[in-house]
């Protein structure tokens, strides 16, 4: 069967595995976006810049404090999340009662400012960040050479994604959050501090972006442009998965990574655009997204 397609099965499996790894990144990033949009109704265009902040945070931790990758994994998401919370407190809070579009404009503007400042300071080529020694090297799986670090990325992403899904869909904290989004006044009447929940949720979503940034630093160049390259694809993933659905964005992230992997084998020139073609088709057939519900 594979011979009909003209690609030996080994090459295909290799590409699928790589697609899965890319999908892991998409999933983790779109998860943060889906959490923020699904629960807060904020279209967070700053997500790409916050991902970039995570990567730069890891680099800064190594260059100025000598703290390596594992420290960065723990410290940087909190730092980036804190920055996000400041953003929410100062700016986003004022926009909840008006059209979504203003939130989009604001976050887009902040993303542009952040990227411009970093580009001014660091240039566009980016900075090197080494793969941690414990994860360097790889294994020859027969059909391809799999770097250990990439295997770690898939495993860690899956863990983070499933953990977040569980937190939001299956725990009491998650249920308070979901209730607070549906009917904030009523939930507040029950004595739950809704503004603080929203603040922490935004911080959590942004922290996820920062975490993705730290994980990306060793393999993609730590560059001010890294966020803007990825953010449009991630938005497409969230839209296809359904803007409010956590599970949707996780499954779609991994799925689209695989689809992109396939495209790279058969028609690599289109690998940038295939996700948007799918988005167009999905929006025509099911505007709320594959797993979304119309609000």
């Amino acid at each position: 069967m594979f011979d009909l397609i003209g690609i030996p099965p080994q090459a295909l499996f290799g590409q699928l595995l790589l697609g899965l790894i890319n999908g892991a990144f998409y999933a983790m990033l779109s998860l943060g976006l889906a959490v923020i949009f699904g629960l807060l109704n904020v279209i967070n265009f700053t997500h790409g810049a916050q991902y970039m902040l995570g990567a730069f945070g890891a680099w800064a931790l190594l260059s100025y404090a000598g703290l390596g990758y594992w420290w960065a994994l723990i410290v940087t998401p909190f730092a980036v999340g804190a920055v996000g919370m400041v953003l929410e407190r100062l700016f986003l809070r004022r926009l909840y009662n008006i059209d979504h579009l203003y939130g989009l404009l604001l976050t887009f503007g902040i993303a542009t400012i952040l990227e411009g400042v970093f580009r001014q300071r660091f240039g566009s080529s980016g900075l090197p960040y080494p793969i941690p020694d414990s994860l360097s090297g790889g294994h020859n799986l027969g059909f391809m050479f799999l770097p250990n670090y990439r295997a770690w990325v898939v495993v860690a992403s899956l863990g983070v994604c499933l953990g977040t899904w569980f937190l939001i869909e299956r725990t009491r904290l998650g249920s308070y959050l979901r209730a607070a989004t549906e009917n904030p006044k009523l939930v507040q009447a029950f004595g739950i501090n809704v503004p603080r929940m929203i603040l922490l949720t935004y911080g959590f979503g942004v922290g996820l972006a920062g975490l993705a940034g730290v994980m990306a630093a060793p393999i993609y160049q730590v560059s001010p442009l890294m966020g803007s390259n990825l953010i449009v694809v991630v938005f497409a993933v969230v839209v296809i998965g359904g803007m409010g659905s956590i599970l949707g964005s996780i499954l779609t992230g991994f799925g689209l990574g695989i689809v992109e992997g396939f495209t790279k084998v058969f028609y690599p020139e289109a690998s940038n655009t295939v996700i948007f073609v799918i988005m167009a088709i999905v929006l025509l057939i099911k505007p709320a997204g594959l797993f979304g519900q119309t609000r």
Partner: protein
Amino acid sequence: MNAKTLKLLAVAALGFGLTFAPQAARAQISGNVVKLGVLTDQSGLYADNTGPGSVRAAKMAVDDFGGRVLGKPIEVLSADHQNQADVGAGIARRWIDEEGVDTIVDVPTSSVALAVQGITREKNRVFLMSGPATSDLTGKACSPLGIHWTYDTYALAHGTGGALVKQGGDTWFFLTADYAFGLALERDTAEAVKAAGGKVLGAVRHPLNTSDFSSFLLQAQASKAKVIGLANAGGDSINSIKQAAEFGIVAGGQKLAGLLVQLSDVHAVGLKTAQGLTVTSAYYWDMNDGTRAFAKRFMAFPESKGIPPSFVHAGVYTEVMHYLKAIQAAGTDEATAVVKKMREIPINDFMVKNGSIRIDGRVMRDMYLLQVKSPDESKYPFDYFKILATIPRDEAFRPMKDGGCPLVK
């Protein structure tokens, strides 16, 4: 004659005078100012090799020349073409039509350069190209006023390609940026490889500004080619090299050919990963006292970001200098007269001795084969390259008759 007739005559005389006075001025400097428009990628993947550094290099040349030519001031404008041909063409058109720009300078990204060349050819303006690579700019897309100053895909292909085939790398697989530059570089390198007795096993085309090369590198690995040619530049090259190391490509015995890799790219990748890469270049900051002096001055400016100039930056400086000298000698900034003088005056600067400009616009200069040092061999900051060989200019660039330029009879 009564008062009315006198007034009429006076107005007519004034009118006549005004019509012809600008004519007299045009014989000197158009608009009483020489305007240079530096059009580059200010914010994207090529911004470190060109970008604000090119604008600064142009300004340095203007300042070193004295800030004035033939008694008139020189002005440097700049803009960001964002690597898009329509944006670049729009800016070039507006500059020439509305702002009186006399020369367009730099324009990296071959697709944009081809578009701008069309405009400068149509509107009779000089085009000083330092950034773009495609050898088509002196081939089928040549212009009588277009000067391809610093390097081109043919020089890169034959320099690096030829050297690697001689070392035993006789099978190649290409990783190509899917637009004018990458395709031209792949085409020229494939020809160079075949001419040297090698074989091309295949190629994969990736979109410009890709961050993940893993699947393309996997295909390159599967081809079992001895050399993987990176027909891309800037951020694309950096990511390709980094990820090739991650996937054990070099450790597995395949060589990487960084066909367009510059110093800031090596700086971004790090010596540990980039060591051993062979590249072809027109300028390296540490070659001689002249190159070092220029680098030192360039690095004092914030646009350098503390990194030595690339060969594109050095090219912008030297081409603006030569252009201004030519204006001085020609007594006018009219495009055809200036380019004629540029061809008559031999090019002498810290990059080349007795350089010349061919009819197709190609500047003839020696090129250099460099190799990235290992971390141990590097003794001081930015001590990144050792000079393997000088490629004489007649070998480095394509023979004029082979280019297909309509200006070559």
